[in-house]
């Protein structure tokens, strides 16, 4: 699949000038509220008419100076922040709503697979008014999927849920991603969700795309990490559960090398993601001795980026790139420069389940 988006649209307080491509998988659109994320995906879905531009999905022009397909002919599923279930229909009727309009409606096997994947079997005869926020959102996702979309847009699907509900839904989303459904445009301002789900990252600010590329590269890139802002920069590593030790640790194989984590309740061979935030990585020029940290990896400095607050050091560790946030004083004391050999001490490694 391929989605090409390039358009302009002026609003009273914001002028949108957006240009990006989204390949297969999950493409996250990240940025502060008001930066134009939702307007951008609305333009893709046909809910917002650009002033000018071109939007092409899988070779079909959805919008240009002659074409403007209505939303119902774009074959784009949309999961809104508020689930927007039809209140006069049961869950089953909501789920089946899109099928009657799809040129190639989901068959019964697909229907029951989606219902199983999202855990909707118990809810089918219920009405939306009686569902919890998390249940509603799951129904909304199923309803969008069963309309057989070529692309699925999710606009902050977890933002209106409390942390417990978020934690309830996130596994369904990672399952959806693993099940190889339609490509997804995922709008969010929560990097934790993006780290768990996305393959590609688009960063937006004030109506423009400021960064676009693979998520793992973006998180380990000092310039992109500064665009993402705050303490979100770091690294995202694909990892495989390799073994569980007798002393309750789990070894994971990653492109950066083997890492030990407190025992994870996962089977050997399972794929996960590891998130290592830049401020959780300490640096040492020599191999540290007498240290409680389990994970110390040798590497090489790729670049040193001095910013307003911290120095971001990009490291090559094996096949992977990591970021370390250190103070300017430490950077000077260690005499870090591109090519310098050093050791990364990983204080905290967060494991994200992806399947």
């Amino acid at each position, binding site marked *: 699949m391929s989605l090409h988006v390039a358009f302009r649209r002026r609003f009273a307080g914001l002028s949108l000038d957006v240009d990006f491509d989204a390949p297969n998988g999950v493409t996250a659109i990240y940025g502060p509220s008001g930066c134009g994320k939702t307007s951008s995906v609305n333009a893709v*879905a*046909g*809910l917002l008419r650009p002033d000018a531009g071109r939007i092409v999905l899988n070779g079909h022009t959805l919008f240009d100076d002659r074409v403007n397909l*209505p*939303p*119902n002919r774009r*074959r*784009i*599923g*949309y999961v*809104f922040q*508020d689930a*927007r279930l*039809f*209140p*006069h229909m049961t869950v089953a009727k909501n789920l089946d*709503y*899109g099928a009657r*309009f*799809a040129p190639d409606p989901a068959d019964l096997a697909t229907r029951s697979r989606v219902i199983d994947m999202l855990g909707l079997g118990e809810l089918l005869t219920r*009405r939306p*008014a*009686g569902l919890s926020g998390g249940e509603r959102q799951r129904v909304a996702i199923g*309803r*969008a999927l069963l*309309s057989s979309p070529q692309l699925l847009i999710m606009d902050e699907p977890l933002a209106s849920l409390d942390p417990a509900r978020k934690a309830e839904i996130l596994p369904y989303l990672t399952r959806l991603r693993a099940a190889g459904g339609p490509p997804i445009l995922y709008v969010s301002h929560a990097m934790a969700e993006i780290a768990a789900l996305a393959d590609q990252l688009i960063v937006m600010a004030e109506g423009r795309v400021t960064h676009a590329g693979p998520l793992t590269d973006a998180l380990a890139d000092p310039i992109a990490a500064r665009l993402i802002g705050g303490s979100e920069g770091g690294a995202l590593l694909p990892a495989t559960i390799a073994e569980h030790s007798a002393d309750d640790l789990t070894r994971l194989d990653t492109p950066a090398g083997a890492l030990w984590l407190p025992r994870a309740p996962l089977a050997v061979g399972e794929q996960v993601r590891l998130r290592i935030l830049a401020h959780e990585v300490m640096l040492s020029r020599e191999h540290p001795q007498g240290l409680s940290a389990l994970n110390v990896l040798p590497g090489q400095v790729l670049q040193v980026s001095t910013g307003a607050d911290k120095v971001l050091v990009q490291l090559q560790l094996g096949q992977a790139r990591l970021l370390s946030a250190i103070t300017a004083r430490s950077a000077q004391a260690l005499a870090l420069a591109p090519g310098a050999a050093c050791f990364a001490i990983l204080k905290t490694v967060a494991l994200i389940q992806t399947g």
Partner: protein
Amino acid sequence: MSWLGPEEWQAVALSLRVATVASLFGLPLAIGMAWLLARKRFPGHGLLSAATHLPLVLPPVVTGHLLLMTFSRNAPLGGFLDRIGMSPAFHWTGAAIAAGVMAFPLMVRAIRLGFEAVDPRLEQTALTLGAGRLSVFWTVTLPLILPGIIAGGALGFAKAMGEFGATITFVANIPGQTQTLPLAIFSLLQVPGGETAASRLVLMSILIAVGAVIISEILARRAQARLLA
């Protein structure tokens, strides 16, 4: 209904027929007009809204006279209907037209409120699921405004049952033809000794009105319950 005389019963039956026809034919038109006023912005929107409400504020006798002029043999519409033998003048269909015109603004108001209460984002969602505009209207909008339509229909029916001024001006007061319940009550009160019969019709009138309100209340609750259960 042995307590009603044949002429009284005739008035009740005529009124029920007139009010039913008036609200059944008026309802689709009222839904269209309410949709136009609630959802569309166009030049002349305010004018159309005011025109819709005219029968509510004009003296009924004026509305009746305007109908008389519109459907007279000398007017284009009236002349055409006369040629094809469907002139409503001094005919029960004329009473239904008068009742429908008078009930129209009430129906439009109730249904318009219904339209305005429907979240347009639900209709937008239906679009993203592949439904065309017409399908969205049938499958999402219409079911959601059903309580408003029921309320509008009941209100229109009750108004049509009670219509007096425009009816008597437009189609006169002919027993068996255009003498509806209110007109019959009026006539009975004009003759000495008619009070007893008038009271019977008044009671009948109250029964029908209360019945209509109760039935619409039950229907509206049922429609509402489907949204909440």
